């Protein structure tokens, strides 16, 4: 069976004009040799610090940004080769939920107009009675009352708005949902509700999901697999529990060390690994070398290919096999 998402050796760069008007434009690489898959009904978490290219990857996957090299296949179709009509068809398979529910809903449209837009664009469900029925079902499926149909976005709370945004994404009944930090703008109590909703929906609708986050706790709750990204490269990816209990890449370990523990005694013992930037090490092909706590000039001079160290656990580091024993920063 084909994977809904198949990304191979993806490169993307943005042209960047120098400070001087006449200087040659330089390309800034934002995605570097990214390879990843999302299997059917699988929720893959993409974790990394801000600016590392998570959202850019989502935009490429949505077809909103082009890419320079590599291949991005959605349901076996290469995005680069799609015609305009084919691209429009793809919209019905891939949908998106954004981070900020305050900017993702048009303030001048009612909930009804917002939810009808996908059908208007694709000329679907034109019969008014049928539409009404589907609208009500759609709102109920995200836990909202159909009475809200004729309200304006500003009348809703952040959590409710995010539910409306999810409903809009589901209107076309996609197979793949790209969720770009859908809960990081919400209160913790509301985060839990939205996460539960996403989990339910992915089960009942047999959705695959690319879930972008910077919060390991959130990703752990929802995701089957987690990929850790740094500076446009995926450094480690593994089944969720495997990654959290047995982190292999120094960056993953450093990230986990920064996750606060709910137990104050344990929190006291855990010192976050300092991530000091050492500009001297930028010669190394490893993007993480300048901040790596295990850097050794002799070893880190060659590039590390992504290697499978155990079933489904990929890691790109030259020091592999890194450690057999459990890392002290593993999250229980």
């Amino acid at each position, binding site marked *: 069976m084909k994977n809904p998402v198949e990304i191979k050796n993806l490169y993307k760069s943005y042209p960047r004009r120098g400070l001087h008007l006449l200087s040659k434009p330089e390309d800034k690489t934002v995605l570097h040799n990214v390879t990843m898959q999302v299997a059917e009904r699988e929720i893959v978490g993409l974790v990394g610090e801000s600016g590392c290219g998570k959202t850019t990857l989502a935009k490429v996957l949505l077809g909103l940004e082009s890419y320079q090299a590599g291949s991005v296949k959605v349901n076996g179709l290469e995005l680069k080769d799609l015609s305009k009509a084919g691209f*429009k068809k793809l*919209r019905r398979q891939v949908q998106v939920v954004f981070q900020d529910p305050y900017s993702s809903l*048009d303030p001048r449209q009612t909930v009804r107009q917002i939810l009808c837009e996908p059908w208007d664009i694709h000329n679907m469900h034109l019969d008014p009675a049928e539409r009404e029925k589907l609208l009500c079902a759609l709102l109920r499926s995200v836990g909202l009352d159909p009475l809200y149909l004729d309200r304006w976005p500003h009348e809703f709370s952040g959590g409710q708005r995010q539910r409306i945004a999810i409903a809009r994404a589901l209107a076309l009944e996609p197979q793949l949902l790209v969720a770009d930090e859908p809960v990081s703008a919400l209160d913790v109590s509301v985060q839990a509700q939205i996460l539960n909703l996403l989990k339910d929906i992915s089960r009942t609708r047999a959705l695959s999901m690319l879930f972008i986050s910077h919060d390991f706790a959130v990703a752990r709750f929802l995701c089957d697999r987690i990929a850790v990204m740094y500076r446009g490269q995926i450094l480690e990816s593994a089944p969720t529990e495997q990654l959290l209990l047995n982190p292999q890449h120094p960056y993953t370990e450093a990230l986990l060390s920064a996750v606060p523990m709910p137990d104050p005694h344990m929190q006291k013992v855990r010192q976050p690994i300092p991530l000091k930037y050492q500009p001297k090490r930028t010669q190394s092909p490893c993007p993480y070398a300048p901040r790596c706590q295990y850097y050794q000039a002799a070893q880190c001079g060659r590039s590390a290919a992504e290697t499978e160290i155990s079933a489904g656990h990929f890691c790109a580091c030259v020091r592999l096999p890194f450690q057999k024993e459990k890392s002290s920063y593993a999250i229980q």
Partner: protein
Amino acid sequence: MNNRIFKRILQNKASLAGFVLVALFALVALLAPVLAPVHNPHDPYQLPQSSYSMTPQPPSAEHIFGTTEQQYDLYYGVVWGTRLAFKIGITVTFFAFLIGLFLGAAAAYFGGMIDELIMRFTDVVFAVPSLVLAMVIAAMLGPDTHNMMIALTAVAWPSYARLVRGDILSVKQRDFVTASRALGARGPRLLLKHILPNSIYPSVVVASLDIGYIVLTAASLSFLGLGAQPGTADWGQLIAMARNWVLGSSTNTFAYWYTVVVPGGVIFLFVLGWNLLGDGFRDILDPRQG
């Protein structure tokens, strides 16, 4: 929707006052032929003249606002001047808005070289003080009401172009536009359904504030002799004819007060009305204030 806007206008005292003022002026403009019967059917904006005597006459039963020098009737001037003011204000603002909207949208939509060209051109227009530029254009075209309107349009559009461009550029980046693109919407739909409705309202507010300002500038041009010609029922003309009568004799300084106060007061109230109404619009057109 319209009902809602109307209700909101009535709730706010300031915008209510503005609405009443503008409505009164609109009524006067509409009923001009009834309030002040036309005496010259070929040109209703021609002021009736009862004699050629230079000294203005105070309000009387026959001329309820008095007369200016050369005995033009101030009442007729005020009534038909209202109609002319609406004609100038609305026409100029409408065309300036349209030109600004078109150029601003083109600059924001195409970007790059077209954007640079359009925006640098608006900068050039902005660089010259608008009244001075309007004077130059009006003088080049020749003094006439229509030429004055062209001159005013030519200096009024850049502010709309700049406003529309900036708003479109910021709205274009918002997530709901990206979401709509992800749903499969393309150029025209995005522009008409999402981008323009969210970027046009600041310009509508500016337009409603501008109508008063345009009329004020038109009055300045007429006062300088670059707009309406002597004998036209135009507020600027009425003030121009009061130029020599601002101060009366040494014993009675304000002997001819009506020649200044009547047209000046009318202009003041007209501009005030549009300003209050424009402020009201600004609050009402914001959907967040339900």
